[in-house]
């Protein structure tokens, strides 16, 4: 009997495709919106997480100013010195490596190609702490760091823009005021929510200070990157670093920290919590549109019961039972909303596949949200199809036949 009702409902849908399309339009939009929003949102969260894990799980960052991320304020706060870095490495237990980081935006020229690149001045420890691997050539050595050699290791984006297909290793480029030799190419880390990580050049800190911009003050270290030994308690480590730096920066007990120490987990939490909230908000808004789509189904089904009163009369007169009429309209509503759900899923997948490369997030296919959105659309069909179906089933055949 269900199968029969399904057949009759399909015929009805085919009989008026335009009406069917308009009926399910709301559901199609609702389902595809929910899935697209949630999938892209999760992709963004995923991208942030991936990037954090690229930073290395033992990474600890120390920056001047309170707070981290978008709300940090470091105006008027002194940077660190190289002595601070050495002190942390030598005095805090559980530190495997420490690297000072000084960033500078430098003009980068190879033959007639020029660009501006954020250049990192650091020590050889920087590569290991930040999990950079070398694709070709080599990293600079401790000796080159000490002597301030004119060498540079470039990221893949810099290589593509300046060298194209050419092998950069061994070539000379102009970096700020100095001419340096490219001795290595970094393996790519990829593009993600935090920007292009491969758009970087790493040089010995000493070279940056002496050759490229000149040392302006001893407090020229904008960030300290640390890696903890495996199995250390990062909370204790952070507390130790805090007290050491407070002491070195002459902070009184009543003064707040004018620097911040964060491990990878905290950084990940800060960054991904905002994208998660965003995902939930967008998903909820899209969910409302799905409910509105359901009301659209009810609306058009109610209109169509009135419009099709005569048809219902004919069906009843030739022997359809009230149950069969109810079932027909219910199945019709559910079939429509399921078709709408399927079309919505298909559109959402196309949208996600199209949009995620544009905004640089991975396409994180989530079968759960697809299933939930589809089942919800079917439930919408049952919930909003029932009232019109019952109204149809309760019609009196004689009255219905007389209906104009």
């Amino acid at each position: 009997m269900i199968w029969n009702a399904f057949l009759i409902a399909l015929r009805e849908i085919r009989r008026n495709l335009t009406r069917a399309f308009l009926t399910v339009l709301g559901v199609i939009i609702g389902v595809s919106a929910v899935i697209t929003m949630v999938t892209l949102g999760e992709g963004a969260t995923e991208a942030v997480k991936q990037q954090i894990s690229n930073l290395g799980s033992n990474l600890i960052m120390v920056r001047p100013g309170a707070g981290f991320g978008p709300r940090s304020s470091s105006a008027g706060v002194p940077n660190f010195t190289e002595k601070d870095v050495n002190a942390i490495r030598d005095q805090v237990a559980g530190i495997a490596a420490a690297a000072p980081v000084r960033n500078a935006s430098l003009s980068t020229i190879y033959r007639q190609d020029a660009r501006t690149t954020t250049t990192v001045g650091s020590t050889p420890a920087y590569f290991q702490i930040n999990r950079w691997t070398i694709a070709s050539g080599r990293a600079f050595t401790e000796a080159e760091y000490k002597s301030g050699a004119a060498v540079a290791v470039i990221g893949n984006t810099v290589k593509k823009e300046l060298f194209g297909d050419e092998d950069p290793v061994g070539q000379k480029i102009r970096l700020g005021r100095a001419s340096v030799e490219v001795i290595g190419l970094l393996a790519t880390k990829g593009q993600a929510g935090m920007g292009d990580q491969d758009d970087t050049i790493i040089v010995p800190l000493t070279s940056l200070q002496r050759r490229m911009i000149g040392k302006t003050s001893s407090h020229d270290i904008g960030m300290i990157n640390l890696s903890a030994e495996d199995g250390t308690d990062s909370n204790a480590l952070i507390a130790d670093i805090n007290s050491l730096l407070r002491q070195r920066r002459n902070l009184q007990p009543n003064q707040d920290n004018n620097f911040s120490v964060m491990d990878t987990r905290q950084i990940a939490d800060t960054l991904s919590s905002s994208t998660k909230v965003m995902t939930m908000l967008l998903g909820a808004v899209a969910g409302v549109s799905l409910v509105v789509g359901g009301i659209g189904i009810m609306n058009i089904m109610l209109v169509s019961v009135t419009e099709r009163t005569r048809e219902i009369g004919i069906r009843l007169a030739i022997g359809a039972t009230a149950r069969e009429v109810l079932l027909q309209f219910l199945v019709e509503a559910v079939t429509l909303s399921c078709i709408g759900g399927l079309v919505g899923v298909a559109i959402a997948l196309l949208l996600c596949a199209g949009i995620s490369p544009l905004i640089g997030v991975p396409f994180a296919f989530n079968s759960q949200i697809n299933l939930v959105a589809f089942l919800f659309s079917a439930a919408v069909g049952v919930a909003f199809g029932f009232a019109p179906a019952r109204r149809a089933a309760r019609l009196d055949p004689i009255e219905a036949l007389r209906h104009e």
Partner: protein
Amino acid sequence: MNPPDDSPPLIELVNLTKTYGHGDAAFQALRGINLTIRDGEFVAIMGPSGSGKSTLMNLLGCLDTPTTGSYRYQGIPVENLDNDRRSLLRRHALGFIFQGFNLLARTSAIENVELPLLYRGLTRSERHEKAAAALASVGLADKHRNTPAEMSGGQQQRVAIARAIVTEPDTLFADEPTGNLDTATTREVMELLTRLNLDHGITVILVTHEDEVAAYAKRVIHVRDGLIASDKINHRNLILSS
């Protein structure tokens, strides 16, 4: 040509009344009908407007229930049947033809004719075969794909007849089947009904205003103010005289 008296009564009405509305607004449309119709009859019901013809037809066709009195169809007490049982009785034994054709719009002739079979749960090929045969028997073998909008009034009514007979009903009910048709088409439709009655033994009960239409029937019943005023064998029956 009287039906043989020993044939079993197909329809038996005893003291049937129908009252519409309640209290002050109550209106007694039928005021005690006694009527027996036998298998294979061709009955025309006539009478002035508002006399209760349609009310009587709806009761006979099991679309409605009487207020008092009894109605037996093939011995089944219809007044005791609930909506669904009456639906099933209509599905399996009765066929309907309406004044306004009442075909499904935007639906091909063959699909319209298949409609009652859909509720009987026939397979696709059985449905198609029977519907095609029914359309052929009303002379529309070449109009399967036409929708009602693409057919003349006479053709539409013939599709409606095909839909009514495709289930091979015992009884065919028609409330003013030619009310919307011109003289030539009326004759076409009436000859078709006559043939169904004579060749297939289907009992035909129709309501009409027109004497020319009633002339095809073997028995003519006049209704006036909710009562049967006269019930006569038709001596002007065209089929008999021709």
